């Protein structure tokens, strides 16, 4: 039996906010197999973002374990987590999060740079990915000169730069008009079809419908886990 790409076991995450303790996740357990297309949904404040940060190795659980492709990530140090983010994960954010002073090509190259790829090689990869998301003609532009949909496509190309197995999208279509949103979702379908695992956080049921599996959270607990 293949190792699931994500294994969460009784994951808790609490933090102090002023004088109060906030229990964002109160014991969440699930597994996601490689190649799945999962939507995480729920009302705001249910712990979606906290869960995504944990899945993205930007944060560590207060207790419980998180295994990424079999490796226990919850006990890794900061450098090791950085390497995991850079090599095994791809991030797509609601507000694109491109670096404004860099060009399209340079933005796509950022993850490659931190993995110490050679300049020529990384340039080649970035060009190929830009072409793949349909921006081969905009390589020298700054993010500000692009539409929202184009910026999000740059972000997708950047997420694919190091050829990660798991892609995490946080309200990826939240800032986009419906046409651009559809284009992005079509790209997601393609990625899944190629065998990548995609986890997205959304509050839009129409977007959630695209996924093969919907995990709903409520008050830091798993509410439902539907496969379709």
């Amino acid at each position, binding site marked *: 039996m293949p190792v699931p790409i994500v294994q969460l076991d009784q994951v808790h995450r609490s933090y102090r906010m002023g004088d109060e303790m906030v229990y964002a996740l109160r014991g969440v357990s699930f597994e996601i197999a490689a190649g799945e297309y999962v939507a995480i949904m729920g009302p705001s404040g249910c712990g979606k973002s906290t869960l995504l940060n944990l899945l993205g190795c930007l944060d560590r659980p207060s207790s419980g374990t998180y295994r990424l492709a079999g490796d226990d990530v919850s006990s890794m140090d900061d450098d090791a987590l950085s390497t995991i983010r850079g090599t095994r994960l791809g991030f797509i954010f609601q507000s694109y999060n491109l670096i404004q002073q860099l060009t399209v090509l340079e933005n796509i190259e950022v993850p490659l740079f931190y993995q110490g790829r050679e300049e020529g090689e990384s340039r080649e990869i970035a060009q190929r990915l830009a072409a793949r998301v349909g921006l081969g003609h905009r390589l020298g532009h700054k993010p500000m000169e692009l539409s929202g949909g184009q910026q999000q496509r740059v972000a997708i190309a*950047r997420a694919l730069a190091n050829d990660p197995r798991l892609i995490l999208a946080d309200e990826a279509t939240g800032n986009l008009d419906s046409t651009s949103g559809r284009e992005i979702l079509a790209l997601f379908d393609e990625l899944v079809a190629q065998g990548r695992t995609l986890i997205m956080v959304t509050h839009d049921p129409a977007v959630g419908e695209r996924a093969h599996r919907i995990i709903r959270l409520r008050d830091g607990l798993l509410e439902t886990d539907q496969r379709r």
Partner: protein
Amino acid sequence: MKRSLMLTRLKRSVRLGLRSLWLHRLRSFLTMLGIVFGVCSVIAMLAIGEGASYAAQEEIKSLGSQNILLRSVKPPEEEKVQGRRENYILSYGLTHEDVRRIEKTIPSVELVLPARVMREYVWNISTRVDAEVVGTFPNYPRTRNHQVARGRFFTNTEMDAAENVCVLGAEMARRLFPLHEPVGRDVRVGQHYYRVVGVMEARTKAAGAGAEHSGDASSGGSSPAADRMFIPLETARRRYGEVLANRRQGSFEAQRIELHEITVKVAKPEDVVPVSDVVRDLLSKNHKKKDYDVVVPLELLKKAERTKRIFSLVLGSIAAISLLVGGIGIMNIMLANVTERTREIGIRRALGAKRQDITTQFLVEAVILSGVGGLLGVALGVTIPFVVSRVAEMKTIITWGSPVAAFTISALVGVIFGLYPALRAAKMDPVEALRHE
């Protein structure tokens, strides 16, 4: 392999840093100014200080570092006596007896050179020059390290025969004979004519000031620096006798002085100080009054070096303070920079940047600021002394060490003051940083 990878990374970090600094050109430039002025003032001040101390040291060296100079000085209590009795002949100073004693009793002395110094007008037809006529021995050039430029110095034969020959100082030769070669011509002092046999080489301004100092003994006053004309000591004795009348001041005033100066040349430099002690001792035993003065150029040189060290220390502290201020400026701007780019830091961390990568990025920016500032400061600091020496005609010396040191320190300032903001950037929680607007 690993090394070249680090090098490419560094190269890219530098490129990235330059770019983000260029994005805020004015801010970066103003920040740099602190370092520019710090570095530039260090170099300029050191160059001017070095030039001044070089001039002072040259002056002392022109007296000869192996020499001990003895000078006749009017004893202070005699002046009161003179005030009461106008026609009193003052008798004081160094004697031929002193010369003999020094020669006989101190073994490590190489040469003892006596000299008489008379303040006189030296004439060429109708051109007049105020000069010091120095009666001395033929080995003066060697002892005082002052060479003959043209012609020759007078010889022992001329000395013994008390001939009327002279060697002119460079400046007075130029003024007396603006159009002709002075060697072979005559100059007049009083009623006597002297044949010019040579011209001394020019001394620096500073060395001229040294001559002024030694001139005090002869005129007993504060007359301006005069060039020297050298005649054989024997000639001087015959022409002037032992009593010198000062005809320049209002009342008649006469002094009996055997010798104005004695130069004691010591064979080995390390013996200079002990020999000077012995000489002092010897003179104090044989002179009832303190009518002489002992100058040891080597001691002066050491004193000058000590002064220079203190001077450099003061300059160094000023430099340190100005660079500190520059560094604080860098730190300030880098902290603002880090806060402004919090989100970028978050993005980079999410995309795989390690803490160390973030530290490097911001540190490189700080070092670029201070490094470029340092380079500009060096350029400016090298230019200023050049301009100063042109405009103010002051000697300035830029030692190669001062730009190198100033630049190195400014780069270090970048590292030290850039480190805290860079570490702060690296320590940020990626989740928090990504949430930052």
